């Protein structure tokens, strides 16, 4: 009965490859997010969707493309992976967009070699 689930948990891939990370939430929330946590543990928002509509799109290379087929799913596709993309990527969800606590997934550790 995991609330926000991400797959895969670990991803090791070579530079130049294309990869996807999937996220699903069963909380009935209408807003989902992708965050990147770097080696210094800073969490930075990348994208947010509210009812399948993109509402936050931070300064992220266009090699990163989110897709939200429905309110419960938010996937992240990354093209032409680079060494600097290595990080932990977290999916999160919330109900509404006004000052609510997020529920985070357990993260996907991406290592680009």
């Amino acid at each position: 009965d995991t609330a926000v689930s991400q797959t895969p948990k670990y991803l090791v891939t070579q530079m130049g490859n294309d990869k996807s990370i999937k996220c699903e939430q069963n909380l009935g929330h209408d807003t989902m997010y992708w965050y990147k946590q770097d080696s210094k543990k800073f969490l930075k928002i990348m994208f947010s969707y509210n009812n399948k509509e993109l509402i936050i799109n931070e300064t992220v290379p266009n090699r990163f493309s989110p897709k939200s087929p429905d309110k419960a799913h938010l996937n992240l596709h990354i093209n032409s992976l680079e060494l600097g993309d290595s990080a932990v990527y977290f999916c999160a969800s919330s109900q509404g967009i006004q000052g609510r606590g997020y529920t985070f997934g357990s993260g996907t550790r991406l290592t680009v070699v």
Partner: protein
Amino acid sequence: EDQVTQSPEALRLQEGESSSLNCSYTVSGLRGLFWYRQDPGKGPEFLFTLYSAGEEKEKERLKATLTKKESFLHITAPKPEDSATYLCAVQPEYSSASKIIFGSGTRLSIRP
């Protein structure tokens, strides 16, 4: 520029030794301030939301307080299971969407 700074970076305490973690923020208007706990290899777990100066929230051995420039997370008589990284985050008032800005966290270790 909106900013969240947490101190100290790391804190080691003896079991039962109370202390406080600090989160200072610079935003042009605050909609909400959040505290999260993050265990190694896991996603952050939501603890509290504070909305206005003077507000306090409590949960077990944790108590969060808020002023106009900073928030404190007080830990009373901590136990080893309280060891984790504690993250502070703010949502600016101007934010039309749900963007929140995180600090880099305080890594707390409680020795038995």
